C-alpha cells in the first residue's frame, strides 16, 4: 500500500515537472472560520495574477486547530500552506521540523517587516523564521465617545485626569469601566492595558537585559496603581465574567473598557450605533511616554515537505506583499503586520498610531515557553491582588520565583 502511494506521488511529481502548464493546487489551512469569505477573495486576486496555481482554503475550529494540524503533519498528510501560531505555539510545530525556513532569499519582503513582528514567527534558539506574520493585537483603553462628550470629558493626559474623569462618570451614574476579572485571562489584559505605561519602557528593557525581575520597584508600583484604578470597576468586578463585562460596555452602561484592539469590531457588531475612541493609558506626568502592549497573532507558513514548494513560496510572497496587507486591513478590520498599510477605518489607523509607542504584551510574548507559563502565573496572582489576597510586592515575588523554575535569568 505504502509503496503504491509512494510511487503514485513520484509519478505525480514527475507529471508536474513534465507539464508545467498544468494547474497546481495548493491547500491552505486556517483556524479563522469566520474569515473564509474574505480569504477566498484574497485568493481570487492571487489566482488572477498567477495562472496555473489554485489555492484551496480549508478552515478548522480554532480550539482544535493545533491538534488537527499537528496530527496531520506528524502523519505526513499536512497542507502545503498553513496558519501558524506565534511565539511558544510556533515552536511546538517548527522545532519538530515541519515548517520550511523563510528568509530574505525566498521571501524578500520579510526584511521590511517590523523586527517584533518577525520575532513572533522566529524560533528562539535557532533564530530561523518560519512564517510571514499576519496581524498584531494591542492592549489599550476603549471609551464610549457619546458618554465622554455628554460629560464633557477628554482623553486623559495624566493618571490624575483619568481618576477625575472616572469620578465624574461615577457621579453621573455611569460605570467608569465595564471590566470584570472573573475570567482568568482578563487579568492579564488589565496588566497589559493599564500597567504598561506605569511600569515604563525602561523596566521592560531591563527585564529583557536580565537586569530586572518582577520584584522591581517600577513593576510593583505599576501594580499598586492598577489596583487603585479598579476602584472604578463595577461593584463585585472580581465576580464578573468576560461576556458580562463586554455587554456592560457595548450596551453603553460603562464609559471605558480596558481590552484588546480585537474588541473594537466585536463591540461594533453588538451595538452598531456605538461611537468609540481609544487611548493609551496615561502616566503620572503629562510628558510620560504612554504605552500600549502589543503582540502578534500568528503567521503564514509553508510545509517543509510540500511537493509544490515553488508555487507555495509564490503564494507566501503574495501574503507578504503590500497589496495583500491592504486588502487584509480593509476587509478583515485587523492591524496587518505588513509595513506601510493605510487604514480605511480611522480607529484602526489610531491603533496603528498607538503601536508606535508600545512594549510587547510581556507574558504572552516572552514567558510562555515553559511550565508554569508566565500568563497562568500572572492571571492567578492578579486575581489574588484584586481579591485582597496578595500585595503588589507579593505578586512580584511570586511571579519571579514561579518563573525561576525554567527562566534562566531569574535563577539564583
Amino acid at each position, binding site marked *: 500500500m505504502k509503496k503504491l502511494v509512494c510511487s503514485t506521488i513520484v509519478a505525480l511529481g514527475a507529471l508536474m515537472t513534465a507539464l508545467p502548464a498544468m494547474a497546481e493546487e495548493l491547500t491552505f489551512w486556517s483556524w479563522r472560520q469566520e474569515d473564509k469569505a474574505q480569504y477566498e477573495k484574497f485568493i481570487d486576486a492571487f489566482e488572477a495574477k498567477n495562472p496555473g496555481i489554485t489555492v484551496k482554503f480549508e478552515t478548522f475550529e480554532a480550539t482544535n486547530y*493545533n*491538534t488537527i494540524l*499537528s*496530527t496531520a503533519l*506528524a502523519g505526513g498528510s499536512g497542507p502545503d500552506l498553513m496558519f501558524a501560531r506565534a511565539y*511558544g*505555539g510556533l515552536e*511546538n*510545530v517548527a522545532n*519538530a521540523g515541519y515548517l520550511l525556513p523563510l528568509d530574505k532569499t525566498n521571501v524578500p519582503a520579510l526584511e521590511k517587516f517590523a523586527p517584533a513582528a518577525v520575532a513572533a514567527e522566529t524560533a528562539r534558539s535557532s533564530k530561523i523564521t518560519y512564517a510571514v506574520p499576519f496581524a498584531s493585537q494591542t492592549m489599550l483603553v476603549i471609551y464610549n465617545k457619546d458618554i465622554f462628550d455628554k460629560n464633557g470629558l477628554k482623553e486623559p493626559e495624566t493618571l490624575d485626569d483619568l481618576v477625575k474623569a472616572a469620578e465624574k462618570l461615577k457621579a453621573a451614574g455611569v460605570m467608569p469601566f465595564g471590566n*470584570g*476579572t*472573573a*475570567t*482568568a*485571562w482578563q487579568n*492579564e489584559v488589565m496588566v497589559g492595558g493599564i500597567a504598561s505605561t506605569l511600569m515604563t519602557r525602561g523596566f521592560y528593557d531591563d527585564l529583557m537585559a536580565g537586569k530586572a525581575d518582577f520584584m522591581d520597584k517600577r513593576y510593583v508600583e505599576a501594580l499598586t496603581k492598577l489596583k487603585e484604578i479598579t476602584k472604578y470597576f*463595577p*461593584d*463585585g*468586578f*472580581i*465576580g*464578573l*465574567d468576560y461576556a*458580562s463585562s463586554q455587554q456592560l460596555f457595548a450596551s453603553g452602561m460603562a464609559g471605558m473598557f480596558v481590552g484588546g484592539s480585537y474588541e473594537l469590531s466585536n463591540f461594533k457588531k453588538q451595538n452598531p450605533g456605538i461611537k468609540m475612541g481609544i487611548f493609551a493609558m496615561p502616566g503620572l506626568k503629562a510628558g510620560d511616554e504612554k504605552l500600549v502592549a502589543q503582540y502578534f497573532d500568528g503567521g503564514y507558513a509553508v510545509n517543509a515537505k510540500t511537493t509544490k514548494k515553488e508555487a507555495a513560496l509564490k503564494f507566501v510572497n503574495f501574503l507578504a506583499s503590500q497589496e495583500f496587507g491592504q486588502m487584509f486591513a480593509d476587509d478583515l478590520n485587523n492591524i496587518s503586520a505588513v509595513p506601510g498599510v493605510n487604514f480605511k477605518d480611522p480607529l484602526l489607523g489610531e491603533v496603528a498610531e498607538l503601536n508606535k509607542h508600545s512594549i510587547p504584551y510581556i*507574558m*504572552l510574548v516572552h514567558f*510562555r515557553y515553559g*511550565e*508554569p*507559563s*508566565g*500568563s*497562568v502565573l500572572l*492571571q*492567578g*496572582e492578579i*486575581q*489574588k491582588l484584586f*481579591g485582597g*489576597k496578595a500585595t503588589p510586592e507579593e505578586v512580584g515575588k511570586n511571579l519571579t520565583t*514561579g518563573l525561576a*523554575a525554567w527562566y534562566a535569568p531569574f535563577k539564583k
Partner: protein
Amino acid sequence: MPGSPLVARRLWITALIVPPLAFVALFVVYPIISAFAYAFFQWHGLARGEFVGFANFYKVLFTQPYADWTLNAFTHNVLVFFALMVLQNGVGFVLAYCLWRELPGAAFHRVAVFLPVVLSTIIVGFLWKLFLHPLFGVVNISLRGTGLGGLAQPWLGQGTTALWALIIANAWHMVGFPTLVFLAGMQRIPGEILDAVRMETESEWTKITKVVWPLVAPSATVVFTLLFVGSFNWFELPYIMVGVDGSPHKATDVLGLYFYRTAFGDQSGSGQDFGAGSALAVLIFVFIALVAGVITFKLRAREIQL
C-alpha cells in the same frame, strides 16, 4: 455435527455476543489501556517520544509546580466530596424522609425536588452563573432588597466563596437523586416492622436512627459510592461556571479541570503534555477504582438482608 440445532444455536449466540463485545473492546477497553500506555511515554505535541517509565507520574506528584497543583486540586475534590455528602446526600435523606411521611404537599414536592435532576449540567451551570451575577444576579438583588446588601458578594470571583458556590449549585442540581433512591429504600421497609416500632416508641428520632437508617443501607451504599465517583470526576459544572483555569487563582481547581489543562493545554499558554495528562488520568482512575471498591465493600457489609 454440522447443521445440528445445537451448533446453530451456538452460532446464533456467538453472533449476538461478539459484535457488542468487539464494540466495548474497541471503544472502551482499548482507549483505557492506551491511556495507561501513553502515561509511560514522553510526548512532543502529538508525536510520541521515548519510553520514560514512571517519569510522568513522578513529575505530577513530586516536582514543582505540578506537585502543588496536584495537591491543591485533590484537596478541593476531597472538600467537594464531604460537603456534598452533607448538602446532597444528607439533605436528600431528610427530604426523602419528609416525602415518605407524606407531610402536606408531598406530591408536589416529590416532583419539585426531582425536577432539577433532569436539567442538563450546562443549563444548570449557566443558570447559577446568572443567579450569582454580581450586578444583576438574583442572589445579590434579593440580599440588597431585604436590607442585607452588606452580604452581597462577587460569589464566583472570591477564593473564599467560589468553590462553595459551585458546591451549592451542584447540590441544588442533584439533591433529587439521593432523595429518590432513599425514598425507594424507605418504601421497601415492610409495614409490619413499622407497626412493631410504633408499639415501642413515639420518638421520631429513634425511628430514624434505629430502624429507617439501618434498613435503607443498600440505598446509602449506592448514593455514597456514586457521590464519591462523581466528586472525584467533577468537571462539567466547574468548567462551565469558572472556566478551565479553576478561577480565581485556582481556588476552584479540581482534578478534572487540572487533568484537562495539562493534557490539552489552554489559551493561556500552558502547553499540551499528553504524558503528564495521561499520568494524572491514570492516577485519578486508580484512586477512584480503589477507594470506590473499598467503600462498596465496607458499606455492603453493614447492609441487613430482610
